[in-house]
């Protein structure tokens, strides 16, 4: 039992931090610009492929810096030359724009790298088990993943809440004309935020690429769960996204290890479980079998019971 709890907690935290890594840029862009970026997972994919390609030439570590900068640059250009114009037509137009952008990026990635998976590997310098608990190895690469996620959270939090830049960014969303009057270039602030947000997606891509599968459908596969993280955490709340990532990671991981079904529970409290009928499957499905659906269940429940999410603020 102790073994199961320890291992599940560790796995849950690691998975949760991976989720936060991917969702941090999305929540940053939403909280600071009010744009729900559907193409976020696509920038994440671009990060993975850039990291793979650049890494082939200069090695993993330089690629870890270069790829996010490049992708962030592309993000900034997208904001400057496209999103800014679309912005005038309201949030629905923006949403549709980023939605379309996701398909374009996927197609471009397929043209350049093909449809099969890329052979993107963990760098040799991190390819060893960091420690072993109950004879299960925890690779150094996963620790690196965890540390990066925590570092990103801390840096973002401090910059947004404790510095002048953060102050200007926060003021830009609620009091744009006033910030402009004070002599700040508001559009440039937005461009910067979008660039940093997409750059963060790319950081996640470079790191997750070798750990998961780097191929042209990775964006589509990941997109939905990121929205769950952001919504459960509270749209636009960085701390909320952090907590939600951990929560989802832990819930999903623990659920996998539970082999109980409704029928089992009924059996234990002395009620004879049904032996047939249309709902037979429902009674006998185990918690483990539906574990990966748990986050979506959480999403639905949160929207019903607490629409602002765990730590979101009501609409201004």
């Amino acid at each position, binding site marked *: 039992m102790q073994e199961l709890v320890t291992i599940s907690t560790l796995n849950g935290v690691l998975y949760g931090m991976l989720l936060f890594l991917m969702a941090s840029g999305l929540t940053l862009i939403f909280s600071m610009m009010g744009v729900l970026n559907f193409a976020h997972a696509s920038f994440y994919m671009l990060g993975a492929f850039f990291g793979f390609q650049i890494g082939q030439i200069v090695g993993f570590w330089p690629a870890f810096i270069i790829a996010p900068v490049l992708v962030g640059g592309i993000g900034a250009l997208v904001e400057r030359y496209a999103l800014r114009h679309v912005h005038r037509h309201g949030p629905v137009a923006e949403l549709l724009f980023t939605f379309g952008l996701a398909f374009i990026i996927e197609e471009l990635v397929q043209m350049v790298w093909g449809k099969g998976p890329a052979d993107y590997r963990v760098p040799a310098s991190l390819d060893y088990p960091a420690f*072993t608990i109950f004879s299960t190895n925890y690779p150094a690469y*996963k620790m690196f993943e965890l540390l990066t996620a925590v570092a990103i959270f801390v840096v973002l939090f401090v910059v947004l809440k404790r510095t002048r830049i953060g102050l200007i960014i926060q003021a830009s969303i609620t009091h744009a004309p006033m910030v402009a009057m004070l002599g700040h270039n508001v559009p440039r602030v937005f461009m910067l935020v979008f660039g940093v947000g997409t750059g963060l997606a790319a950081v996640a891509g470079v790191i997750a690429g070798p750990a998961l599968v780097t*191929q042209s459908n990775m964006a589509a596969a990941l997109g939905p769960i990121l929205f769950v993280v952001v919504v459960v955490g509270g749209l636009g709340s960085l701390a909320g996204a952090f907590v939600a990532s951990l929560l989802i990671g832990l819930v999903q991981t623990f659920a996998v290890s539970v082999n109980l079904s409704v029928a089992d529970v009924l059996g234990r409290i002395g009620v004879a479980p049904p032996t047939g009928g249309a709902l037979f499957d429902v009674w006998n499905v185990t918690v483990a079998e539906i574990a990966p659906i748990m986050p979506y269940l959480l999403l639905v429940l949160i929207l019903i019971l607490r629409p602002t999410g765990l730590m979101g603020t009501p609409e201004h």
Partner: protein
Amino acid sequence: MTSHITAMLYATAAAATAAAAFIMPAPAGAEDTVKLAYIDPLSGGGASIGEVGLKTFNYLAEVTNAKGGVLGKKLEIVPYDNKLNAQESLVQVQKAIDSGIRFITQGNGSAFAAAIEDFVAKYNDRNPGKEVLYFNYAAVDPVLTNDKCSYWHFRWDANSDIKMTALTNYMKTRMNIKKLYLINQDYSFGQAVRAEARKMIGAKRPDIEIVGDEVHPLLKVTDFSPYIAKIKASGADSVITGNWGQDFALLLKAAADAGLQVDWYTYYAGGTGGPTAVKQANLPDRVFAIAEGVANEPYAPAREFEKAFRAKVNVTLFYPRAVNEIRMFVKAAEEANSLEPTKVAAKLDGMKFTVYDGGDGFMRADDHQFFQPMYIANLGPIGKDQPFDEENTGWGWKMMGKIDTPDTNVSTTCKMNRPS
């Protein structure tokens, strides 16, 4: 006997002319072609798989045409994108039929295969004289040649029961298997693998303890480490999985990360991205796969073909069964001296054939399921006399066991409705 000799000649000729295929353009006009509609995903999540199939069939058409085509006509593959959707598959079949195509092939996804099989059967009922044949090269749900069988459907891939029969016939000889874990995708195919594995292992090696039987949602899991933790906790020494695509790759990566040391008995470790994952997971000689062909099998005609195929298409020949399909199609047309689908079908029905990898195969008349020798191979660093590696990993398939045609036999419940 003569058919065997012809087939042998074909195999040799295919290898010999493979190289010539790139040089010799086959002259043919539009009306001199016989078209085969290829209906599989060419966009979206399944595209990476559909693309490989299309390249394979295009290459096969090229080789066939270099040898004079089908009854002197040029074989042309016409791609249709079914977007991994049953409704869309039928729309595409209809489109193909409307443009005059009488032969269609599809393989990815048994649900779509079932839809097409049913559609073709009904179409042929309603349109006598305009029959259409459906060649299935990869959809393995047993039901297609059992309860839902159709005279117009021919399956060249071993169905999942046959694969499990062959796999368990090999596993029963592996005395080091004591505790077995099953992990599969939660849909019809994964459930079939799970049920058959339980049944057959229970019958052939009752001493093996099944310590876990897990299903997970199809293509939705990003982090397999909790599943690996369960496998580890169960004390299993071997795992059977029907997982494919990213579900296979992520599962193995998570296993490698956690340092799980077990033997993996799989259906699709050879699929796109599979060998890369096995190499990344660093599990040499511990991942087994069941297939109807092994690249490194020492059968000269197949090796020649594989070599020429890789040189041209730049991927592994993942579908030796597609080679059988096209060769048997050509043979049936020639024996019938006609491209009329009913006549071709009558020849394919019960046809005996020397298969791509050598050995005897036959298209069982009872259910139109093709039977052929099956091979168990495992993946590891290539040694001598192993010319082929996979996905440039330096690792290749090594043949571990051959299950000859008679030992792959499974019964069928098919009551075939034959045209009078």
